[in-house]
């Protein structure tokens, strides 16, 4: 009853109202005070009346036409008071933007029909499109990590439907902000160019924003809706269960560094503890399978032992029992790449520098690279010459010394300038007492480094050649810079850490070694120059660009996607690959000259996406589960109950109808001779 009608009057009012038709009836039957009129003879009239009496019910109805019209009027008024309406996907407004979430969690199959949430959303948008009037325009934006305008504003429903069909599920995370900004850009300008020509959007025009999503993302902050009228239509269910692999990585065991281990973490986003089998494959060969008991709403993890030399694609797969309804299957597989593990080798050429040596000898540093030490005098030896020119080392650190030829490796000079003309532009004499003004905090070398409290006695000014960048700037000029050289990079630290006085005694040139930033800096150095390969362990997210360092001289590389499609990629810089088309989950192979130069894995690993349950707002004592609202800026967009975004009311129509009846009755009353 309440869904169809909403009572607006109390019982007393209804009682009074119900008296009106009774009174009407009474008046009708009492009123028959006919005007007497004398006629010559009623002879013919009687015959007429008899004829008409014979002539059916309709004549009687016609006689009471006024009564019926009055009753109809009353009935319409009463019906209008009941405010009938239906919970339909009715559209009110002129312009609509349909935001459709196509993120990974929308692939969950917890809808009533058993289709994915995205299909459900598309179906519901389609019903909305069907209801568009001819003067309404709509556009469709699909969003995940990146928003995409699938169809611009148009009133062509066929275009809208076709656009809807084009939306494919993705494996990426959800970012509503981008989609909102895009919608805002379309909704809030005054004029739009569409296919049909220029289209005016007046200032006051509200644009209805329908958000079809499962709400698996955090609220949007700092966004003003402006003319957008948001409606959030949650899709999915509270009870959806899902098991997901939330972590997979391979590393050396802490206890046994000679052994590799694969670490798998499984999360259970359900209400019940769930047992599942985790299988691990290396290059499609089953390595091992483990049964895991995952507590409800918690994670469980396991490790798999791998052989020392194991290399290739690592794939973990969840195999939940048949009885378990795993709504999201995207996150049941995870990928990792085991590199052919070559330890990074770092050569430290130093006349002796305890501080530096100890910074490079920490346990952490050992895990990152194997550091060898050498005196500057040994640079004359053929061994060094051979090794430095044959890419044996990833990084050579020249502390207070300079090689005669630049090696085929990245270098870091401490207190000296590289022996090339490119670096020799500035004054080669040390300057005294520089104060550090600023440093490039975003550069990986200076990651987490605080230099403001570092004092330096004297330093060389390191002016990088063209293409390089200054990393630390001081009152006297740049004192730390980096510049590329072929596929290597040379970094130059202008000041010595430990200096030598004229008499040969050692002095401290800086108090940096006493700061926390010092060991961190050297770890960064190892990490940046030598340990690049292990960056593959960092997670690449779907639809986010991947940047790789490739050992290749070619300018064009081929990337093979997980589904075996191939893409040619033009390199902006030799040795650097930036790849954007990471929509698929799995292992991507980079080919250089027909050889696999690099592999990287793209994984979901996102608890927000894997937790496919609709977010629940706690509702007092009655325990009714209500879908949590979205917060956009300072506005809370309440979730509309499924299938009923708008209640369409009839009462206006009914009152208009009553008015028409009234006019009709008046007309009949005055002109009924002719009816």
């Amino acid at each position: 009853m309440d869904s169809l009608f909403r009572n607006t009057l109390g019982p007393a009012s209804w009682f009074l109202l119900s008296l009106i038709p009774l009174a009407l009836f009474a008046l009708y039957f009492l009123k028959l005070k006919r005007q007497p009129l004398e006629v010559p003879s009623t002879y013919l009239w009687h015959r007429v009346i008899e004829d008409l009496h014979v002539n059916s019910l309709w004549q009687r109805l016609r006689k009471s036409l006024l009564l019926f019209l009055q009753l109809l009027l009353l009935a319409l008024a009463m019906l209008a008071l009941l405010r009938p309406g239906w919970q339909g996907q009715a559209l009110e407004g002129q312009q609509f933007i349909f935001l459709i979430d196509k993120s990974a969690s929308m692939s969950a199959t917890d809808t009533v029909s058993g289709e994915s949430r995205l299909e459900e959303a598309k179906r519901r948008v389609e019903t909305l499109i069907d209801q568009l009037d001819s003067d309404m325009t709509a556009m469709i934006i699909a969003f995940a990590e990146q928003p995409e305008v699938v169809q611009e504003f148009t009133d062509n429903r066929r275009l809208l439907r076709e656009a809807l069909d084009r939306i494919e599920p993705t494996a990426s995370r959800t970012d509503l902000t981008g989609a909102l900004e895009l919608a805002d850009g379309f909704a809030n300008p005054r004029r739009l160019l569409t296919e049909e020509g220029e289209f005016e959007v007046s200032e006051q025009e509200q644009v209805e924003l329908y958000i079809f999503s499962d709400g698996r993302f955090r609220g949007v902050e700092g966004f003003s809706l402006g003319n957008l009228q948001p409606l959030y239509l949650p899709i999915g269910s509270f009870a959806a269960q899902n098991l997901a692999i939330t972590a997979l990585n391979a590393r050396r065991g802490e206890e046994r560094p000679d052994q590799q281990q694969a670490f798998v973490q499984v999360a259970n986003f359900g209400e019940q503890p769930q047992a599942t089998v985790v299988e691990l494959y290396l290059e499609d060969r089953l390595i091992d399978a483990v049964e895991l008991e995952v507590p409800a709403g918690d994670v469980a993890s396991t490790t798999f032992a791998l052989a020392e030399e194991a290399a290739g694609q690592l794939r973990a797969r969840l195999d939940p029992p048949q009885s378990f309804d795993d709504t999201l299957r995207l996150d049941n597989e995870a990928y990792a790449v085991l590199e052919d593990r070559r330890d990074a080798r770092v050569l430290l050429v130093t006349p002796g520098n305890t501080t530096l040596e100890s910074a490079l000898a920490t346990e952490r540093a050992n895990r990152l690279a194997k550091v060898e030490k050498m005196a500057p005098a040994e640079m004359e030896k053929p061994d060094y010459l051979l090794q430095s020119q044959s890419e044996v080392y990833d990084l050579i650190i020249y502390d207070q010394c300079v090689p005669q030829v630049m090696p085929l490796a990245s270098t870091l000079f401490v207190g000296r300038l590289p022996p090339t003309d490119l670096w020799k532009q500035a004054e080669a004499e040390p300057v005294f007492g520089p104060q550090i003004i600023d440093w490039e905090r975003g550069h990986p070398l200076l990651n987490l480094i605080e230099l403001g409290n570092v004092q330096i006695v004297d330093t060389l000014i390191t002016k990088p050649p063209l293409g390089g960048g200054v990393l630390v700037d001081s009152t006297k000029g740049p004192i730390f810079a980096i510049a590329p050289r072929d596929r290597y990079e040379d970094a130059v630290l202008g000041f010595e850490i430990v200096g030598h006085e004229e008499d040969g005694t050692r002095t401290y040139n800086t108090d940096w070694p006493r700061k926390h930033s010092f060991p961190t800096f050297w770890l960064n150095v190892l990490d940046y120059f030598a340990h690049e390969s292990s960056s593959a362990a960092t997670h690449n997210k779907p639809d986010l660009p991947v940047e790789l360092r490739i050992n290749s001289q070619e300018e064009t590389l081929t990337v093979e996607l997980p589904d075996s499609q191939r893409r040619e990629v033009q390199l902006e810089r030799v040795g650097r690959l930036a790849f954007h088309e990471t929509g698929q989950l799995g292992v991507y192979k980079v080919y250089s000259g027909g050889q696999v130069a690099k592999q990287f894995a793209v994984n979901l690993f996102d608890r927000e996406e894997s937790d496919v349950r609709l977010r629940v707002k706690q509702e007092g004592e009655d325990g009714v589960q209500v879908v949590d609202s979205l917060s956009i800026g300072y506005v809370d967009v309440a979730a509309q109950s499924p299938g009923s975004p708008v209640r369409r009311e009839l009462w206006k129509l009914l009152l208009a109808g009553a008015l028409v009846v009234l006019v009709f009755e008046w007309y009949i009353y005055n002109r009924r001779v002719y009816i």
Partner: protein
Amino acid sequence: MPVDRDSSLLSPELLAQLERLELVTRKVFRGRMKGERRSKRKGQSVEFADFRNYVPGDDLRQLDWNLYARLEKLIVKLFMEEEDLHFYALVDASMSMDFGRPTKLDYAKQLAAALGFIGLIRADRVRIETLGQGVGEKSPILRGRQSVWRLLQHVEAIEPGESISLSEGIKNFCLRNRGRGVVVFISDLMDKGGYESALRYFVSHQVDCFVIQVLSQEELEPDVKGDLKLVDCEDADEAEITVSAPLLSRYQQTLNAFVAGAQDFCTRRGMHYMLANNQLPVEELVAKHLRRRGLVR
């Protein structure tokens, strides 16, 4: 000549027009007195009709002596006889005739006076009666131009208010008047008992009968609206109607059927029928429509 004493009945123009007319009948009746109308009988006019053999008893004055001289046979020469015509105007003076503008009764009286005047001019015997007269109450027989005044006086004296059924009235009329002739019955024929049995008296009476049904404009095209209680002025019968378009059209159908029924009834029985609207001027009715019907010439 005191003709136009009452100009409300007959205007001088009408009289002048009527003087040129005469009453006609298809039937030839035997008159009472010498008149201007050819009779069945052979008689004494100047117009030759036939010869026939003499039989004893014939008037010797009518023998054709010339023929006797030639043929030695007694041949009687017959002449046409001219006689007068009995003209009766029977006016329905019931209450229902007292409607309309002019009232149907006035219209009927005017019509009766006009026809009577024609009769008087042509030396016919004219008698104007109403339905309500009893068997013994005979109206005077008028004859000759000098009686015009009496005719008008008599017609003028007819008052509405008689309540008698059609058949009763006509029966009385037939009982009163044995003589045959032309009867013009002026009525609205609105009798709840029906007009059929009444008109049959005329048939049996073997008169040349003209039925002129006078209806008022209000009856022909009623201009009414709303919820009404119609009261019959004669018997106070009531009919409640709610006027609507179908009702009115149904009324028209009924009226047309009524008129057509009456016409059909009369035509089948050798009577003449005519519907007169009270808006139609009497002179036009007489000069045009009745002339076409063959009542006047």
